């Protein structure tokens, strides 16, 4: 009986949430936040990849902005300079970025912990410098503009309203896909690796193989998000892909809680709202406060804000149901 009620509630909550998401961009609702929501959606795509990587392999990547940037620049250069169809450009970008991650994945994942963090950081910085220096291709530090919009047939995604639905379609699709991966054989293998790499290998799981696989997946997600960013802003510049950008993604993943795929939206949402809306009032102090929040969250809630909130909610619910069954 209780289980049925619970699944009922879950269904209802999901439907309400979906309705909420659909209504957001309408002017009479929360239309003024459409652009913010687009950025949250794009960030969430990168974050969910990072959640999978960090949560299920226990390894951190401080260079995720490199893949994000690769996606953006591949899309920008192919669709603008070479007039390739934007959708095809997006696909090529994802494939190329994924292949790149695959090639560097095997040597890089022989490292772990601090050393892996530094290696990915180095990788991110190399890509950032290349984006800036290869100015004949990328437009250098000034970036490149005039990237075409995405379109389906004659339908052009030329307003934020339309792009909102495009971005959130991709965002939810990646989340569902990730959810399925977590529940699949690969997901169980990854959890085993996180638990104990030695034990996982002793039952025949090739740990490096799975780690690289999830690394490639996270790179493809980031590339996809980068492509969406390029076609949303119609402008790319190296600033969007610097070290701080990589750190932001890690922060989103951590705040969202590494154990949950859906936490990615929560992490991307809170971080974006914090840095794009709330901290703007603090002017140049915003970075200072951001740094302080990072430290405080990590000290007091190392398992993430999302998990903490969920815990509180569960406790509250338990007390509530207990009181009800007490006649």
């Amino acid at each position: 009986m209780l289980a049925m009620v619970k699944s009922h509630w879950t269904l209802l909550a999901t439907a309400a949430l979906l309705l909420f998401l659909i209504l957001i961009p309408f002017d009479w609702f929360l239309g003024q936040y459409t652009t913010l929501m687009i950025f949250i959606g794009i960030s969430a795509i990168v974050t969910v990849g990072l959640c999978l990587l960090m949560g299920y392999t226990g390894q951190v990547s401080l260079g995720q902005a490199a893949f994000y940037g690769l996606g953006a620049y591949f899309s920008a250069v192919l669709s603008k300079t070479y007039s390739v169809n934007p959708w095809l450009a997006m696909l090529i970008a994802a494939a190329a970025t994924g292949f790149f991650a695959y090639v560097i994945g095997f040597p890089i994942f022989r490292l772990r912990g601090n050393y892996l963090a530094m290696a990915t950081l180095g990788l991110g910085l190399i890509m950032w410098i290349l984006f800036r220096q290869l100015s004949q291709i990328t437009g250098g530090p000034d970036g490149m503009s005039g990237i075409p919009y995405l379109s389906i047939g004659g339908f052009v995604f030329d307003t934020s309203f339309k792009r909102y639905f495009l971005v959130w379609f991709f965002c939810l699709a990646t989340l569902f896909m990730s959810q399925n991966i977590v529940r699949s054989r690969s997901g169980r293998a990854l959890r085993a690796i996180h638990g104990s790499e030695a034990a996982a290998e002793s039952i025949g799981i090739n740990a490096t193989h799975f780690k690289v696989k999830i690394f490639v997946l996270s790179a493809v997600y980031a590339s996809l998000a980068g492509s969406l960013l390029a076609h949303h802003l119609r402008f790319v510049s190296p600033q969007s892909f610097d070290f701080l950008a990589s750190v932001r993604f890690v922060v989103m993943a951590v705040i969202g809680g590494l154990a949950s795929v859906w936490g990615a939206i929560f992490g991307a949402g809170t971080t974006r709202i914090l840095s794009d809306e709330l901290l703007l009032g603090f002017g140049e102090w915003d970075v200072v406060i951001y740094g302080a929040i990072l430290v405080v969250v990590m000290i007091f809630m190392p398992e993430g804000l999302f998990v903490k909130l969920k815990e509180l909610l569960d406790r509250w619910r338990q007390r509530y149901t207990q009181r009800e069954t007490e006649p």
Partner: protein
Amino acid sequence: MSADQFLQYLISGLTMGSIYALVGLGFTIIYAVTRIINFAQGEFVMLGGMLSFTLAVSAGLPLAPAIILSVLIAAVIGAIMYLFAIRPARNASVVSLIIITIGVAIFIRGIAGVGWGVDFVRPPYWTGSESIRFFGAYIHPQALWIIGTTLAVKVLLHFFLSYTMVGKALKACAINPRAAGLVGINAKTMALIAFVLAAAIGGIGGAVMAPLTLTSYNVGVMLGLKGFVAASIGGFKSPIAAVIGGFTLGIIESLSVGLDWGPFTSAYKDVIALVVLLLILLLWSGRLAEEERAG
């Protein structure tokens, strides 16, 4: 490249390498005692340089007290960082600690940006600015200060670690924290000392380099990374290894800029350090993995 040119590049490589070595020393000390990579290490270098400018130029203090005071302030900030950001995060995972030190770095850099603005500044030279002829090349007196300071810091550190009680306790903590605890060495106190020491050495590096290289609120990022490369070339093993690592990186960078081959202009100088970093990490990955497992 003529012999004179080679010498010139060698000298500038040694100069920059000395700075990397000082940053690398900070990384090595903290890592050895606490197993933490301090991503804020570069910020102490920035603080040393910016503070010495503020104290010596804006506040008008004589140079020597200004420098000593800026190193002391950097050390105090190192202590504050440990007490308020690292110590409360007990039993934190590697990822959490990485983010915490990055958070501290962003915090310090942010305050520096607000307080000092974004312009590059140059504190006064410690002694003259007349370059000294050295065989076919020239050495700036400040470069001599930089190289000399690095060597002096290294020697002093050696005596501190080998001949004082506190220094030996630090060493013991680095070699085996549990055994050190069993003989009554307080790991937390040692960690605090490591942070103070690393911050002070970073501050010294910043103060001595700033007159020659100039400094601004955000030089810490790249310097931190270069210092980390220096420390990894040294394998995070010992202070002397970090110093050799720093010299190696400085000379590689300087010579590669001097060679000027193909599309590789000086803009790619930083890429070279990063590629060296990746190569070192990958070549030594097996050994590093074992250490991480053991530690």
